[in-house]
């Protein structure tokens, strides 16, 4: 369903250029759920934005289905952004955020669809006419997920979808996403810093550092804590909670 080959993305040019993605390749089969983890700034969001057709300045190849990711295909692929604050229009109600994609694509029974979408993400009808600033962080992220599902896409790109959520809502959203994945045969790419979330949601994952994929593995290998690369081992150690000693011992991989 998704095929990425030697994807490279650079911001700016000349000596100040940032090589955010430096030749990334991976495949995601139809109905598969694929995780992307790795260091902050390693290019995960940049890869997702390219796949969503939001950034067309790249080299290499990236296709969704048969079509290049340069072509925006909102009914095929939708993205949930990392930052729930920036992704909702501050002066649009929840109702408007959810019904707008339906209007643009001339899809009927908006009323029921909006109600169902809110219920699907665990928000009651009371939230329908609220503005983003009247919602908590977690409530906003649920609206963002509901909006991505309005057009019933086959591919869902999720950028840290639960990092702004409390653990119980996270459980609700993860259960919801797993259910939708089965019911609608969704293909997913999930970016998360939480390795347990990736293990729970994905079949395979790629570990990124500095614009490159360091290693790819299946989730069983992650669960057994048997990665090949030292970079990934450090990630696993650091995910066990705060430890001053471990913090001091963290090394930078180039």
């Amino acid at each position: 369903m998704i095929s990425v080959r030697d994807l490279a993305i650079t911001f700016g040019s000349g000596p100040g250029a940032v090589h955010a993605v430096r030749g990334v390749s991976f495949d995601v089969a139809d109905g598969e759920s694929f995780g992307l983890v790795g260091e902050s700034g390693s290019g995960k969001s940049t890869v997702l934005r390219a796949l969503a057709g939001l950034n067309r300045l790249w080299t290499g190849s990236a296709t969704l289905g048969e079509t290049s990711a340069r072509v925006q295909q909102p009914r095929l692929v939708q993205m949930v952004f990392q930052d729930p604050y920036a992704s909702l229009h501050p002066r649009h109600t929840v109702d408007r955020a959810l019904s707008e994609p339906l209007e643009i694509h001339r899809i009927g029974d908006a009323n029921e669809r909006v109600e169902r979408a809110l219920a699907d993400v665990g928000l009651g009808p009371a939230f329908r006419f609220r503005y983003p600033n009247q919602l908590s962080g977690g409530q906003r992220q649920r609206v963002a997920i509901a909006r991505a599902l309005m057009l019933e896409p086959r591919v869902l790109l999720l950028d840290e979808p639960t990092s702004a959520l409390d653990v119980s809502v996270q459980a609700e959203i993860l259960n919801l996403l797993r259910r939708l994945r089965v019911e609608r045969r969704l293909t997913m790419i999930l970016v998360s810093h939480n390795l347990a979330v990736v293990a729970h949601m994905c079949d395979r994952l790629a570990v990124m550092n500095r614009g490159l994929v360091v290693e790819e593995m299946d989730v069983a290998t992650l669960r057994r804590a048997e990665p090949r690369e030292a970079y990934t081992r450090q990630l696993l150690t650091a995910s066990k909670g705060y430890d001053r000693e471990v913090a001091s011992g963290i090394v930078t991989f180039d």
Partner: protein
Amino acid sequence: MNVAPPPLLAVEDLRVSFATPTGPFHAVRGVSFTLGRERLGIVGESGSGKSLTGRAIMRLLPASAQLSARRLSFDGIDLLSASTKTLRGLRGARISLVMQDPKYSLNPVMTVGEQIAEAARIHGGVSKIEARLRALAMLEAVRIRDPERVFRLFPHEVSGGMGQRIMIAMMLVPEPDVLIADEPTSALDVTVQLQVLAILDDLVRQRGMGLLFISHDLELVASFCDRVLVMYAGRVMEELSARDLASARHPYTRGLLNSLPRLGDERAELPTLSRDPAWLEER
């Protein structure tokens, strides 16, 4: 005779409500705690009032909010009766808030480096050149690779985790006595998260800063903080020593713990909270 040092923050019966068409909505309902030179965690489900509690201390609530408290004081200063001028002098300089939404609170038309340098200048009373150096040093301290480059970037040009660290750098550069950190590391990868927490840890241990650490990451709070407040529907359900969090007995806290996915187990369905109406009642 040993006299316990007065707390940095004292909060008693804090209440925040909003007027709605169907009557007042009580978002924070009688929260009390003190903060010393320690790491105090606040956990709790979404909408339980964690951020509003932090913002109430800063007196940075939206205009539509009603605030009341029996006591709300910082270092002996009554924050409820303090003048706008006093509050402005405290904010950023002596009490800092790292907001949950970094990009929201950064100026979009100013480079991130200039913003940190400005914070150093306004609150630290240093020259322009010194402020720039401090800003660069602070970016390096929060593990930003290539601080010189990032100094010149605008907020939309930085990644999610970089934005969070820029906010932290900006809030720490004036060396505040109290830092209220609202989900400060939720966008960071686990290694950078640990390094940033180590900075905060050192500031608490070495400089005696007070840290109010708002987070929904129970495992992180359990390993990082000294004490934890568990909030539900605007109230503190229980207060625990952080090391006892994993063995908490309150059904709400247990419910939160059970809903965590773990690397070691393969449950298909994660249990979610079943809320007991009795938890809503004020004691």
